[in-house]
């Protein structure tokens, strides 16, 4: 009988099925572990720091002497300065570069090919190396010193590849027919880009800018290299002032020998992660709205 399976064969099939199920369970377990890691980390932060977060924590200066009174005013303000200036510098550069690559020089030549390869490579350079570029170029050669301006310029170069790549994707997603319709009406290329392509690509570009802001707010290493300080008890008046940022304040407190400062570090991390969550949700909402419109 060719339809029947011998006992040995059946046992073999059962074993293979069992193995297959075990492999599936293993993959599921890995996913579960990844989520468990994230939840453990967040839970640990809430346990350590949630009680410490208060209005006065946000509005007090840091203190070496009194961990219970120390706050994150100077670092929060510093982070806002750096983030705002970084966005100011990187948006025209990143969007301009993307427009050049996707709209103005659509036929590939040696220059565009070189730029494309270069952007991919630049995105893989460790962040601390950007700090070293900033140290020599902005601090010493341009003479900006260890100022907010230097920090923001360094950060702008760091997030530039990301802004270019996301903007390119956003421009690519605009249908070709839109451009053709506009050009057929006798507009110039720039008029088409400004009035037709950019408005349609705006949600995508905005998402990229928000993600760049999130990156800029969390980065620490390059800012240490270009001279941001751990403990600052004044607010910067201008872009030439010295400054600290939230991650650096966290570093300072996390490395402090006194345990009370660990609590302050956890609280500052919660504020930082809350900021990142706000930025990320904004990006998600913008993306969702744009998809609904189409």
């Amino acid at each position: 009988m060719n339809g029947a399976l011998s006992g040995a064969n059946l046992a073999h099939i059962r074993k293979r099925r069992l193995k297959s199920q075990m492999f599936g369970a293993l993959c599921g377990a890995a996913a579960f572990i990844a989520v468990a890691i994230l939840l453990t980390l967040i839970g640990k932060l809430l346990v350590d720091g949630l009680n410490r977060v208060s209005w006065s924590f946000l509005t007090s200066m840091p203190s070496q002497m009194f961990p219970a009174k120390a706050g994150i005013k100077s670092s929060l303000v510093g982070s806002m300065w750096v983030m705002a200036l970084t966005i100011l510098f990187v948006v025209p550069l990143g969007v301009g570069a993307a427009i050049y690559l996707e709209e103005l020089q659509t036929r590939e030549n040696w220059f565009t090919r070189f730029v494309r390869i270069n952007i991919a490579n630049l995105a893989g350079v460790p962040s601390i190396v950007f700090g070293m570029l900033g140290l020599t170029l902005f601090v010493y050669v341009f003479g900006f010193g260890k100022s907010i301006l230097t920090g923001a310029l360094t950060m702008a170069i760091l997030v530039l590849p990301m802004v270019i790549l996301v903007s390119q994707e956003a421009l690519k997603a605009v249908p070709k027919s839109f451009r053709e319709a506009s050009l057929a009406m006798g507009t110039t290329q720039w008029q088409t880009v400004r009035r037709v392509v950019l408005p349609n690509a705006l949600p995508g570009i905005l998402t990229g800018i928000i993600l760049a802001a999130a990156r800029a707010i969390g980065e620490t290493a390059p800012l240490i290299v270009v001279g941001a300080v751990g403990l600052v008890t004044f607010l910067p008046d201008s872009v030439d002032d010295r400054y600290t940022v939230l991650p650096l304040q966290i570093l300072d407190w996390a490395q402090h020998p006194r345990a009370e400062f660990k609590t302050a570090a956890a609280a500052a991390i919660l504020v930082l992660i809350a900021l990142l969550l706000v930025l990320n949700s904004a990006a998600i909402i913008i993306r969702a709205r744009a998809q609904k419109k189409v």
Partner: protein
Amino acid sequence: MATLGFESKIGEKITNAASKAMGRAIRENAVRTFCFFCAAVSIIATVGIVYVLVSETVPFFKEASLIEFLTGRTWQPTHINTPQYGVWPLLMGSLMITIGSGLVSIPLGLLVGIYLAEYAPSGVRKVLKPLLELLAGIPSVVFGYFALTLITPALKNVIPGISPLNAAAGAIVVGFMTLPLVASLCEDAISAVPKALSEAAYGLGSTKAEVIIKIVLPSALSGIVASFILALSRAVGETMAVTIAAGATPRFTLDPTKDIMTMTAQIVNFSKGDIDRGDIRYLSIFAIGLLLFVITFTMNLVAQRFVRKVGRPAK
């Protein structure tokens, strides 16, 4: 006279149109030039990085010999009497973090990637993907805090002799950091494998695990390997988590329970104390930075080679 006025009106219109067209042309050119400049900035940045790293490293090798730097086993550039410039302790620190993080991120990331591409129901995917993105978005300094307050105490239960700052905790949190990268790149590579291949295998009576392990994974291999290399390259360049977790003692050792120092941690440490240009600390961070750049750049190039293979149809 009337005809003349008429003609002059036309002439005016023509000159108006001409000047408008000229204005447009100028604007068009200005925009083009500006955008060209923007695109060029990314190249200037790369050239700037290489130039700065090389030009500031040259004076370093007036103090130290290249051979000592690349072969020496002692790193104490600021020692007053007998400065020594062997980079190996820092390299081994970075190596331990990189390999250790790979032991965490590679198996976990690959399995999560397989789960996402082959097993996860769409509802689970919709929750899992943003959670992984969230994990990837947590700043490096925060992972340092976790290593210090969560991982090291946990490790102490297993290895009582472990030092309060140690390479193992640093490696584990860097593994957590790079896990989402491996998972999402592996998912992409697996999803890109043509359905016909796995359907043919199912048609021959294979089980799901057999299809995945014997057909899908080998077809997606280049993308998977690329994700591993990228994760390791990220770990080499990782700075804040290892600075906080792994310590600041350059040691020629591969013992993960000891406090060590990575290349990146040394750069941060020397940068912290307001260094002046030309100072030996300033010079040595550029020598280390150049080495770091060369290592990560090579790894990224190799990874890109692998990625390019994915696009090609299988023969």
